[in-house]
């Protein structure tokens, strides 16, 4: 394990150095990301300017509702596990898009390290600072701007179990990326499958209850991004859905197991490329 940490540190240093070299590239990427987020948040702002709160109704009766600031908090929170996964484990995207297709996966198999770890630790994606900065800013802003009766009701001790579960939430992203990227061992390219699955995390930025059963089931159990965003966020805000925390650990470990199985099967099926 120490070996992998050391390796990862070397590559992190390297990518930070690269960041200094390609400043413009980084800045453009960061500006692009901030703009995308800004537009989404602006849309939220516009919607909430017209309505007092986001409500979920059953038979015309309001069952649950969220204020603008609560939605903003959930949105901001969702960017944290996503951002950390993006920061540390971004290289999996390359696997599905070109590494396997071009036969470049060869080099990961000729070194005495776990091929999956090796792929993961080879890249440190500084672009992810965009997600993290926007996420943290939104969390801080939403908490400060919240009406004092809501903010005052938050029990800050709830942050502790959420922090404990955080690594498992991050692993949900990593495992889904791993499993879908490993499909490329059979199909040569699977980047678009990864992209499709990954994009469902967009649903998880908003209260899960507002969706119909299909979407709700999808993002809670199948591609369980809701466990990385809405559930822990609403637990911090209101103390609701504590059940989701142990479920996150269980689901995350299961997904991890499945993704490793697909990965190892995939390696035996890997066909390299002609040279």
């Amino acid at each position, binding site marked *: 394990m120490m*070996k992998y940490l*050391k*390796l990862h540190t*070397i*590559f992190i240093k*390297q990518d930070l150095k*690269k960041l200094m070299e390609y400043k413009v590239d980084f800045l453009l990427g960061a500006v692009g990301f901030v703009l995308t987020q800004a537009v989404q948040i602006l849309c939220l702002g516009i919607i909430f300017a017209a309505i007092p709160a986001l409500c979920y109704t059953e038979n015309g009766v309001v069952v649950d509702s969220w204020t603008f600031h609560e939605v903003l908090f959930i949105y901001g929170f969702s960017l944290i596990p996503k951002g950390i996964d993006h920061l540390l484990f971004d290289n999996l995207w390359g696997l599905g898009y070109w590494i396997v297709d071009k*036969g*470049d996966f*060869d*080099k990961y*198999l*000729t*070194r*005495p*390290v*776990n091929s999956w770890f090796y792929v993961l630790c*080879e890249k440190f994606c500084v672009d992810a600072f965009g997600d993290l900065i926007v996420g943290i800013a939104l969390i801080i802003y939403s908490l400060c701007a919240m009406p004092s009766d809501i903010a005052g009701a938050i029990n800050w001790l709830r942050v502790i179990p959420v922090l404990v579960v955080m690594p498992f939430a991050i692993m949900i992203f990593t495992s889904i990326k791993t499993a879908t990227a490993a499909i490329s061992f059979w199909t040569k390219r699977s980047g678009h499958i990864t992209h499709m699955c990954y994009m469902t995390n967009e649903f998880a930025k908003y209260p899960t209850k507002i969706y119909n059963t299909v979407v709700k089931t999808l993002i809670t159990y199948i591609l369980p991004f809701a466990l990385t965003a809405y559930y822990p966020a609403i637990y911090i805000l209101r103390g609701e859905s504590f059940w989701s925390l142990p479920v996150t650990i269980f689901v995350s470990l299961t997904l991890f197991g499945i993704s490793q199985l697909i990965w190892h099967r995939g*390696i*035996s*099926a*890997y*066909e*390299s490329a*002609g*040279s």
Partner: protein
Amino acid sequence: MDSNNIMIQVKDLRKEFKKAVKEPGLKGSFKALFSPKYEVVKAVDGISFDVHRGEIIGFIGPNGAGKSTVIKMLTGILTPTSGECRIDGRIPTKNRKEYVKEIGVVFGQRTQLWWDLALRETYMVLKEIYEIPDDKYQARMTFLNEVLELDGFITSPVRTLSLGQRMRADIAAALLHDPKVLFLDEPTIGLDVVVKDSIRKAIQKISAESGTTVILTTHDLEDIELLCERIVMVDKGKKVFDGDLSELKRRFGQMRELNFELKNIDDSEKLCYKDDFNFSDDDLTLDIKGTSVNVRFNSDTVSVEDMLSYTLKRVHVKDINVKDADIEEIIRRLYLGGGMLSD
């Protein structure tokens, strides 16, 4: 044969690839989407051979013969469909992490170095990966530096290296952990004569000093002539020759070359080797450019003496010489001849 002395053992190794068969055009693509048809391509079709400790063997064959597929199975990249290969008693795909510590791999077409790292840092990363102790690392670096002359560019990022520098850097990277076996897949491809020469010398020196077993694939016949003690030739996934260079020449080297200048340019019509001696197409090539004539022929079919006297009787020549078969000619004939030469 002393079994302790065998480094690599390959037994009836096979690798099949499933290839999707598609009819041409958009319609074909749709058909393939809904009812895909596959055909099985036998890339490696039952190859067996042994390699001794410390041997340098040349693994040759035309493009698409299955050379790289064999190398990739030996290095643990591909899983064989059937058959077995053992390197120093180990099976590459079983316990891969332990196995690859014993081998070094260089793919000439594709670098294994990190594009943006300075070369020195690349070696630091490899030191971590292979868990090489400091003193051993220092000694090894000094040795590789001396053999491959890395000093001039060791602080440059890999992306700025020339092809020759990069290849030397790649070879050093594959040897840092002092592997028992070194796999070189086309290590001299695209290099100039001087660099080729220095790389060949380095390979010889490394093999001699560290006792490394070397398996080399190449299309460069000089590589074979200068480096390889033994040659294994494959074609269409099968082994067609296994032996040393002199045996190759003895078995397939019946080709001789006759070169001369005609005194009279019109004389060329008088030379009808093919009809007069009943040569087959494979056994004779006649090349006449102005007054200079080049004849390659199989000396098993017609002796050199007969050819000479036939030529001298019919035409006046200025200058004549007979050349022994060179390896290039032999390889060309073997490649064209294909599977029928299997032993």
